[in-house]
């Protein structure tokens, strides 16, 4: 076991983890944060996307020990009380989801994208979200949601 100390959604947390423990399973099983989904488990679908030190990463491909000392944000850490994060609000308003399985990952990837490029073109949005797969929506409303979030200054 290796002792790690990190900040998750603003709260300090310390834990003993097996080095092979993947960040996504640490978040889901050890911390009970089940908002982050596992889709493919092979670094393809992006459902497991979280922010590590503000940048999007696929948490199925990061060991928890690699996040020692880092700031991790999951979808649970976005809303302020009852007020959704502007990206969540935009996904809601633009109906950018059907089953919703991919949504936490898309929301986290979008936050990272808009931080790097606050006014992306449609092509930049599609390219910027190429690490996330959605089997339901056909992406159209996801792109609209990202555009709306960008307009809202997310």
């Amino acid at each position, binding site marked *: 076991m*290796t002792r790690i100390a990190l900040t998750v959604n603003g709260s300090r947390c310390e834990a003993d983890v*097996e*080095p*092979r423990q*993947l960040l996504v399973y640490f978040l889901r099983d050890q911390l009970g944060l089940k908002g982050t989904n596992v889709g493919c*488990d*092979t*670094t*393809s679908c*992006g459902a497991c*996307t979280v922010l590590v030190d503000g*940048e*999007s*990463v*696929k948490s199925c*491909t*990061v*060991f928890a*020990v*690699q996040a*020692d000392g880092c700031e991790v944000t999951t979808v649970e850490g976005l809303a302020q009380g009852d007020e959704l994060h502007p990206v969540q609000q935009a996904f809601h308003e633009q109906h950018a989801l059907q089953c919703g399985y991919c949504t936490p990952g898309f929301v986290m*990837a979008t936050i*990272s*994208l808009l931080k*790097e490029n606050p006014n992306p073109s449609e092509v930049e949005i599609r390219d*910027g979200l*190429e*690490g*996330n797969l959605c089997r339901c929506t056909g992406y159209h409303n996801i792109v609209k949601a990202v555009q709306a979030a960008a307009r809202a200054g997310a």
Partner: protein
Amino acid sequence: MIPAAFEYERAGSVDEAVALLGRDEDAKLLAGGHSLIPTMRLRFSRPSLLVDIGRLDDLRYVRENRDRIAIGALTRHAELIRDPMLREHCALIGEAAALIGDPQVRHRGTIGGSVAHGDPASDLGTILLTLDAELVARGPRGERTIPAAAFFSGPFENALEHQEVLTEIRVPKAAGTYLKYVRRAHDWATVGVAAARVDGRVQVGLTSMGPTPLRARSVEDALADGASPADAAAHAADDTMPPTDATASSEYRAHLAQVLVRRALERL
């Protein structure tokens, strides 16, 4: 798909990493983890000790070193893309890095890990070979410089010895371009082509056309003899061994290489 159990140590310096590697012949370095962790999850790789060099931030840099550019081995793909020095003096590195995987992969993956892993489909491997880059490695007996032409020895094989850590990559200032053909989003290259003007000579490299990145020497020689881009590009598949797999047949790859080499030369 959980990797086999392993011991974990985080190195605080390159020398410490070298020493830790000496402890166990099945030890492996962990940089961004974006090649190693997927292979460990499939249990293709089962290192007994992982030496994490991911926090060696002093190996994350791009600097000018007289007429060359020095890139720290831990520099991440996303950093290569936005680096102003590379943009000005060696833009094809950022151009190729921007085509690797997806943003999440580019936030974690490093140039050192990319070339050390030695995937024949690695984009940056081709770039370094095309530019005649030098790779600096540190081991128990000190530092040595390996020319890119001597670095890639086979699929997932390279010239590094067990305890050697890649620390720096040096490239010349060069104008160039990288074209990558993929059929799906965030895919590896079906074929990739790099073309660069190095010291007045045009050099051309190929991705996914053999067991390692390759130089298209016949294309280069034809150009040196005055051939047009189209005539030179006809030699793109000479001396290559393009694989057949689920994405493309060997013949299709050979055809693609010719088309992409012509386009890259016309763009150069």
